[in-house]
């Protein structure tokens, strides 16, 4: 209530209109809810006197969890109430309308499930793991002794860590050896995402248990029970994540790359024996598209394997990796070519012919869009003459685009020489180019009184031949 009062009354004089006023009020409400939520963790205070009262520690933990749930419902309820009231009071306001739209979209996606993303697609295991880790983290944050309980209670401090490690090494050599073994086996564990998820969940649970223990001081039996619970739920989490991936693999029509990603998620090293060969065979699939190519390459690069540049050292690499692709995978595959700038002109022309085959030209503008999909280093000023002399629309267009920065006379000579070969679709661009280049020549060479006249010709877009020193 005070947030509404502060937001509405106090900020009213500095807001220019109703929208701003609602903005201010909502900010005040969000901030106050943050305050209500994160500064009302009563367990620590209760623990200071409950030691004298017949209250069980299990009861205190349950109370804390129920209290947090209560807070979540209350804060969300209040927020919904405020938004509903705002919607009814200021229905015509732009901001409220926008806010309402967002709520409707959210409702369509997550509640009514009208939107296609929920209906038809599945959540890949990697994203599911991220969701699982995020949810565990937020859970540990919400249902802890205090919002930053682990740090407030100084569970993780440099001195504690140092002393624990030293103590462990001195007094428990077997445990220390196991610990070292664990550290070295982490690399292997990390390969399998379900185990990683379970391990994360376990460590998070341990931190929460330790934080509760620092306040309530559990008996060893209860500690053992909680740690066992953490171990079993972590194992169950791993199994659950594992099963989730298997379920996806069995229950959905996955692409090859999606299948591979699921296998990698489960810890399978698909690039084990001949990494480059395997990647080559996967990328040789003519059906493979942009996202799959990117995912595969990203997956490969993460694995500390030989550089993927070596892909093109394989026999028929260009044919398998580039020329057999459909439009959806062709341009992404081009990005895999190492040192694309040093490709021979013949190869470049082959590539541009493939572009022509995949995307027959419509206009100069769409042509530019297509060329933008090719890595910029592919185009070289040295190749302008050859590119212009071909009958390939894209080659000619790329040459014209490259001409912008080369000497004017050379441009005009090249154009004059190849004028008959230039695609009719490029005539407009050719005309513009000639006018642009010719004007520059004239401004530098004619008498001052003529200068304005020539420029005005340019502006009017007079015929090309009348402006050029020698007609084309």
């Amino acid at each position, binding site marked *: 209530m005070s947030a509404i009062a502060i937001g509405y009354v106090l900020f009213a004089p500095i807001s220019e209109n109703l929208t701003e006023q609602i903005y201010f009020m909502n900010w005040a409400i969000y901030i106050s809810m943050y305050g209500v939520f994160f500064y009302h963790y009563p367990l620590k*205070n*209760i623990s*200071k*006197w409950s*030691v*004298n*009262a*017949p*209250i*069980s*520690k299990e*009861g205190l933990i349950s109370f804390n969890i129920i209290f947090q749930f209560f807070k979540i419902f209350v804060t969300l309820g209040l927020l919904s109430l405020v938004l509903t009231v705002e919607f009814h009071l200021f229905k015509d306001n732009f901001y409220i309308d926008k806010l309402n739209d967002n709520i409707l979209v959210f409702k369509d996606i997550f509640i009514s499930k009208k939107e296609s993303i929920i209906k038809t697609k599945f959540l890949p295991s990697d994203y599911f793991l991220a969701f699982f880790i995020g949810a565990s983290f937020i859970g540990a944050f919400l249902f802890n002794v205090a919002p930053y309980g682990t740090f407030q209670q100084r569970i993780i401090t440099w001195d504690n860590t140092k*002393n*624990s490690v*030293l*103590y462990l090494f001195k007094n428990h050599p077997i445990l220390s050896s196991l610990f070292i073994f664990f550290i070295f086996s982490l690399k292997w564990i990390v390969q399998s995402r379900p185990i990683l998820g379970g391990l994360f969940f376990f460590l998070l649970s341990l931190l929460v248990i330790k934080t509760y223990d620092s306040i309530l*001081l559990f*008996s*060893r*039996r209860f500690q053992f029970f909680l740690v066992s619970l953490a171990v079993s739920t972590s194992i169950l989490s791993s199994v659950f994540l594992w099963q989730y991936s298997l379920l996806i693999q069995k229950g959905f029509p996955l692409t090859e790359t999606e299948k591979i990603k699921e296998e990698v998620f489960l810890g399978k090293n698909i690039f084990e024996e001949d990494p480059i060969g395997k990647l080559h065979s996967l990328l040789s699939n003519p059906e493979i598209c942009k996202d799959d190519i990117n995912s595969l390459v990203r997956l490969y690069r993460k694995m500390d394997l030989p550089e993927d540049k070596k892909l093109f050292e394989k026999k028929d690499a260009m044919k398998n990796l580039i020329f057999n692709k459909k439009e959806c995978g062709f341009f992404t595959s081009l990005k895999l070519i190492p040192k694309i700038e040093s490709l021979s002109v013949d190869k470049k022309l082959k590539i541009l012919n493939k572009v022509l085959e995949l995307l027959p030209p419509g206009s100069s503008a769409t042509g530019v869009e297509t060329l933008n999909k090719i890595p910029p280093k592919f185009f070289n000023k040295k190749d302008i003459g050859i590119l212009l002399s071909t009958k390939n629309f894209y080659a000619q267009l790329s040459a014209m685009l490259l001409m912008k920065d080369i000497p004017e006379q050379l441009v005009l000579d090249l154009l004059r020489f190849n004028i008959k070969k230039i695609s009719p679709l490029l005539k407009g661009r050719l005309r513009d180019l000639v006018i642009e280049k010719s004007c520059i020549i004239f401004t530098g060479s004619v008498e001052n009184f003529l200068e304005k006249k020539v420029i005005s010709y340019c502006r009017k877009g007079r015929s090309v031949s009348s402006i050029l020193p020698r007609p084309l």
Partner: protein
Amino acid sequence: MGIVNLQNIKKNYFFLNVLKDISLNLEAGKFYGLLGENGAGKSTLFQIIVGLERPTSGCVKLFNKNLESFPSELKTEIGIISEKIELDTPLSMEKFFNFYRKFFQKWNQSLFDEIINHQKIDLSKPFKKYSRGQKMQMVLAAELSKSPKILLIDEITSVLDVYSRLFYLKKLEDFKENGGTIFLTTNVITEVENHLDHIFIIKNGKIIFNGNKDDIQKNKCPLDKKPLSLEVFFSRLHAPEKEDNNNDQAA
């Protein structure tokens, strides 16, 4: 076996041995005092007894039940008074005590009112608005009114003023006469000396004296005419090491 029984309690903070193999037994109806220099391990031992600290090894039994598996219902029989006990709620103390007393069947409201009125404590404020001494008095009043079987008290003497100390020592005497047991840790020896039935002296994490006033007199020098006071006995127990320390420093 007594009300409180400690067997071979050890407490280490990593490489620091704070308590070294401590065993003691508290019988019903007696006033026990735990004395020791600062840093001797008094508070650690107290916290282990009340369950605010976990021993590294050893066993603590209250009412013949292991502290680890101590049923929460039995907490009505124990009153813990320490600066660590805070009745920290946003409620006024009056409201809090109205809520708190419902936990205890044997709550003695007239005793509570008597203490609060005698000490002129205004219960209309929340706990954090009171001074240290007032906070301690409210905890004392509440724990005495619970009518527990044992009171475990940590260092009240240093927090309360002289007048209040005497008042509460009188109340503790009454509590003892009604069959209650008191375990008190303190640094102010002279004021509690006459009330104590049994004394533990702790030094460097070890109990170096465990006996009553008669046992103290056994340590009296034959030439001493006056009876040996607890304060003198305590300082004698600690003197040699201090001299040694001085010698070490001089060296």
